[in-house]
């Protein structure tokens, strides 16, 4: 039954009761964990969207000083893409029932994600040592803020990934870890998408952000 029909039902009517009495199960054909993750991602999307709005509003207040270009971030992006690919492979293996590939995929996904986080810390240090580093430059401030929040979310994902990996290591059946693998994969793809948007945002000049600002009514 679609959600609109559910919300327009008249529960006090006898004929409706005959339909309602047979209701069973959740509102959506999803496991609670899957729905929980989606609701969480909705909240995280609001968080990062607000950051983008804040970035746009702040940009408009002065002559924009773009963040210094750092080639390391391209390498970090590749690492995160590889991590996401590894997780996708893990999900496929889990659906095939291939536990050995799941094990390898989880380790690879975790390794690339940790390498990405390490790369981000190195990027922070590089930025800190740049000539003309000025923390009041909003582009630099936002770089620290956004990468920190994104990194913390990835760190949280690594906790879930670690729990899943431990289950596989302890000999759980592939059926018992399939859902966890699928949820981790969804989360990884989501964080990659967020990073690509934020990366593009941070290293675009104000001109290329003009469309975004216009859309938001800020310019």
């Amino acid at each position, binding site marked *: 039954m679609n959600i609109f029909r559910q*919300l327009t039902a008249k529960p006090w009517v006898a004929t409706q009761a005959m339909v309602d009495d*047979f209701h069973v199960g*959740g509102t959506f054909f999803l496991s*609670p964990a899957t729905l929980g993750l989606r609701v969480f991602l*909705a909240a995280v999307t609001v968080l990062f969207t607000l950051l983008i709005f804040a970035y746009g*509003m*702040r940009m408009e207040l002065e002559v924009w000083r773009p963040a210094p270009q750092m080639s390391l971030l391209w390498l970090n992006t590749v690492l995160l893409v590889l991590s996401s690919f590894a997780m996708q492979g893990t999900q496929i293996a889990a659906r095939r029932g291939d536990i050995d590939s799941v094990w390898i995929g989880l380790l690879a996904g975790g390794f690339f994600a940790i390498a990405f986080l390490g790369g981000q810390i190195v990027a922070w240090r590089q930025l800190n040592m740049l000539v003309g580093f000025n*923390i*009041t430059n*909003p582009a630099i401030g936002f770089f620290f803020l956004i990468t920190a929040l994104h990194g913390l979310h990835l760190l949280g994902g690594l906790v879930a990934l670690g729990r899943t990996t431990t289950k596989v290591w302890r000999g759980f059946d592939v059926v018992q870890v399939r859902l966890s693998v699928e949820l981790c994969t969804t989360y990884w793809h989501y964080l990659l998408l967020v990073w690509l948007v934020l990366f593009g945002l941070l290293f675009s000049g104000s001109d290329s952000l003009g469309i975004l600002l216009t859309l938001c009514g800020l310019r």
Partner: protein
Amino acid sequence: MTDVTPNTVNYLAPAEVEDVELYHPKSFVTKYIWSQDAKVIAIQYAGTAIAIGLVALVMSWMMRLQLGFPDTFDFISPEAYLQLITMHGMIMVIYLLTALFLGGFGNYLIPLMVGARDMVFPYVNMLSYWVYLLAVLVLVASFFVPGGSTGAGWTLYPPQAILAGTPGQSYGIILMLASLALFIIGFTMGGLNYVVTVLQARTRGMTLMRLPLTVWGIFVATILALLAFPALFVGAVMMMFDRLLGTSFFMPDIVEFGESLKYGGGSPILFQHLFWFFGHPEVYIVALPAFGIVSDLLSVHARKNIFGYRMMVWAIVAIGGLSFVVWAHHMYVSGMNPYFGFFFATSTLIIAVPTAIKVYNWVLTLWRGNIHLTLPMLFAVAFIITFVNGGITGLFLGNVVVDVPLSDTMFVVAHFHMVMGVAPILVIFGAIYHWYPLMSGRMLNTALGHFHFWVTFIGAYLIYFPMHYLGFIGVPRRYYALGETSFIPLSAHTLNEFITVAALIVGFAQVVFIFNIVWSLFKGKKSVRNPWRAASLEWQTPQVPPSHGNWGKELPVVYRWAYDYSVPGAAEDFLPQNLPPDQVAIAKGHEALGVQAAAT
């Protein structure tokens, strides 16, 4: 139409209900401290929220003492006064009201009302409480650090919040921001539980439109909170960066004590947008659960189905949606574009429509009902009156031309205390009187309850009605002392003294209430099962108070909505949600009629 004819055709065997596996605690610690049982977590949330709320209550006494009798109390300095108003506001809005409605009532009532054994993620639910407790402890710690807690006002507006001269600039503001971030993390864990449990863990027969309005209110409020709290989180983290790392998100070029600071280019208005993008939905995060609970209290204690159930659900959803497009009505005096103000004034007035629908439906529920003036009913009626009062002054302030002269006066203080202070608190009291027998197995003392009600209700009006007049004549809010000011007459000072005395008496009534809760736990009259003869599912558990897992061996099956009261043709004046149609007792004289009785 509700069919009360014995009916076996649609009867569903309980065995058809899918069950879940629960974590079973084995020790005192896992049962009552590191508990994963939503009911225990609810009590933990409520206990912590009420405890910190009492601290905020004492703060309000101190503020009133200063305002009523300035130059009398040496221990209340101007800095301390600012700290008191800041902490009082923040504690009451976030750490008491939000936590108590969602963490307290949400945890206790959602699984019971939807027919689940527990929340869907019990471990995460447990973490939610402990992170909340940590947030409270961090907040409390700010009282004891050098410089004390922040005195920036509960809105924490930069740049003053992090500049020298504002109390708590050194550590207090940092702990406040950290505490808010922790609260939001903790709430998110709990909020995911509430939403997913309502959507996915309802028992057989419990459709969305058979949910009690209490669940609807808490459910929509939780969604609002999950989407609005990120704004506060972003604002808090950005201000923390400004304070600790020297970034300039919110800090403009600024000269402090003749010295140019290193900040530059930031926007204080940006913080205001972020804060109020959270702040206005926060009003409804508190109000929607109150709306839902009061609907159920009215229905049960007037022995009548709620009037316009579907409209009530839609109004809750509509108010939730609209609450995200009114935030800038808190910023009319920030120098915003007049067209911007026009838009937000319009959206603010539009939100009055679904809200008014709810008020009409509450009144129409009472109309020709079999009204029992029990304590929950008294509080529910008091809520309607108070909410209408606060809502009408909200219409004043929603209009730019009226808001500008009244901004930052005591009128605003009176308005928001009526609408989101007194009104929701009245519902909390009503809800506690209503569900205390379920939670404890004992009744609260009625005589003490009546004393508590009448002193609180009348006292609240003695406090806040005069405050509107103070606002009209221009008495500003957040001022430590008014001094000799030509436009403030002597009568205003006398009125301030009167308000202070009233506030102290109302505060004392709350002490009586706390005494009643504790005393009744041990000495209260033992409650019969379902003492209010309520139809909703939480009262139909095999044991009272409900045991771990709520439902014994088998989950309940639901056959009707939660509002079948005084159904014509039925022998009892209420039909529990889980009473099978073939067990409905028919009133004498109706057996042969094949009753199809009108229930609405």
